[in-house]
């Protein structure tokens, strides 16, 4: 763990102050044509804290991520990053503000080598002119070192990343985001497709990123995983917020119950009457 935290801290922005708001969302909503996918979302991402967003399929989690990561602009409410109100036009803009997203299934390009994936979108070049060569040796060395420091062992840095396990791919994607100076890390269902042990590794990374002062948004439908790392919990349902509490105000039981359906479940149990 020490290794991981040190490495993360090394790359993390020194300006980050724990508790300082990085992203503030106020009444954010999003409609796709006639469908209102999200409404009235208030969410703060603070430095050095993990904000967990929970919800069932179709609750609006993906839409929320897309707004924060610049894939789709919001059309209601205000989004502030470092206190300045803005709307992202592209993922590049979000990245330039230090907001990096690691997607569950589209984190990497499987046919490309591990090192190319690590540097994708932030390649090191020999010069600024068009067709400048890549600094391939340096890129391979850095990718190899960074992954080793974080305890990810790949057989060969030149192998296609598709040959790694799901957990390893997820970790490479997180390592990449942190290495390139992310201040806010959005993790989209990072543990959904993983076994218990691999989930553990990803959760440790999440905690390490938090300890290094990054703001983390952890999106999941697993309240147990959320409760292991979270400082603040938001549960979404049908595009709206049904729970918004700090860690001190909520227990794992309440989270689990709410996720399982909450009051509806109680009603259902009455109806089924056993």
């Amino acid at each position, binding site marked *: *763990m*020490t*290794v991981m935290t*040190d*490495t993360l801290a*090394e790359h993390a922005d020194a300006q980050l102050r724990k508790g300082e708001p990085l992203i503030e969302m106020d009444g954010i909503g999003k409609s796709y044509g006639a469908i209102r996918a999200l409404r009235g979302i208030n969410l703060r991402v603070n430095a050095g804290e993990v904000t967990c967003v929970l919800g069932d399929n179709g609750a609006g989690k993906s839409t929320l991520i897309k707004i924060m*990561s610049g*894939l789709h602009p919001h059309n209601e409410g205000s989004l502030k990053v470092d206190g300045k109100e803005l709307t992202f036009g592209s*993922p*590049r803009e979000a*990245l330039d503000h230090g907001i990096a*997203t690691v*997607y569950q299934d*589209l*984190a*990497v*390009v*499987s*046919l*490309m080598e591990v090192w*190319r994936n690590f*540097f*994708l*979108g*932030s*390649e090191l*070049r020999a010069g600024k002119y*068009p*067709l*400048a*060569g*890549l600094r*391939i040796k340096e890129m*391979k*060395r850095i990718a*190899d*070192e960074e992954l*080793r*420091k974080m*305890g990810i*062992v*790949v*057989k*060969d*840095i030149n*192998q*296609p990343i*598709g*040959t*790694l*396990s799901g957990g390893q791919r997820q970790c490479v994607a997180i390592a*990449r985001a942190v290495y390139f100076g992310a201040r806010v890390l959005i993790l989209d269902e990072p543990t959904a497709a993983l076994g218990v042990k691999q989930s553990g590794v990803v959760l440790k990374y999440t905690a390490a990123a938090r300890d290094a002062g990054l703001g983390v948004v952890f999106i999941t439908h697993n309240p147990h995983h959320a409760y292991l790392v979270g400082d603040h919990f938001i549960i979404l349902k049908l595009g709206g917020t049904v729970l918004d509490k700090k860690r001190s105000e909520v227990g794992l039981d309440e989270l689990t119950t709410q996720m399982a359906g909450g009051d509806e479940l109680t009603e259902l149990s009455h109806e089924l009457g056993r």
Partner: protein
Amino acid sequence: MTNVQTSPPPSTAPLPQPSNRVTLGLSNRLLARPEVGALVAAILIFIFFLVSAPAFRSGESFFTILYQSSTIGIVAVAVGMLMIGGEFDLSAGVITITAGLVNSMLCWNYGMNLWVGAVVSLVFCLFIGFVNGYLVMKTGIPSFLITLGTFFVLQGANLGVTKLVTGSVSSTDISKIDGFSSLQAVFASSFKVGPVTVWITVIWWILFVALAAWILQRTRTGNWIFAVGGNPDSARAVGVPLIKTKIGLFMTVSFLGWFVGMHLLYRFNTLQAGNGVGNEFLYIIAAVVGGTLLTGGYGNAIGVAIGAFIFGMTSLGIVYAGWDPNWFKAFLGVMLLLAVLVNLYVKRMSTARKVG
């Protein structure tokens, strides 16, 4: 790998042992290269024609084959890059004729210097490439359909406009117009090395292949091309300019289409407006035989060049051997099927998780 990490001290946590890392065997590394299958096929076909066609065994016929290959290979390189980027261009065959016709007819009718006409034609072709790319990216309709549309528009317009302007289906002879000789020197000259005639397109072909190989393997643009072909969403999410990259690829195809169009015009002085149809498939076959995946994200420039060379070798080899040239298409079909099977196998091999 050199070890220059500053923190942490090794005692805080044991680093993973380097012994976990293995270097894959030579056979595995070779198999993972896209062009190996094509190279083996090229060598086999070469030996086959050496044995069965006596006329094949001379330096002259070798360079004729290279010339034949270059006329396909130049556009095929761009088509290969586009396919690595995950898209198709069916208009790449007829655009060569469009390029030549625009140049020829503008200069004939308005008395322009041919250089001016060539530049106008270039701008026009780049515009077509841009429109192809723009429509594909903005509508999300598969490039197969969009460029099929462009293909028919260009094919029809080539014939229609030529008939309107010249009254026949071929363009007028432009060899008397200013600028002809200098343009011919650039696009369609040849020189003798001993008994061998070397066409300048062979030199251009080699240059374009080298440039494409450099771009694909060694530049940021190349990284982006593989990424937008392999997984566009993921590429976009890490900040790769998806739309620009893909539109750029379509424009590269139309640029090299223009280039071959210039060659045809300045080699033959006049163009048949109905030509070029069907060449788009030869480009795609060259790319696929050369190891490019139809689904994108995999391939390289050398492989595409070998694919074009196989095309040149077979189309002329059959003639040298004195066989009915009609068999050529059948042979091409077989090559394509074999190539697709090999590609499928290679893709499975290189993405399968290696256990242990």
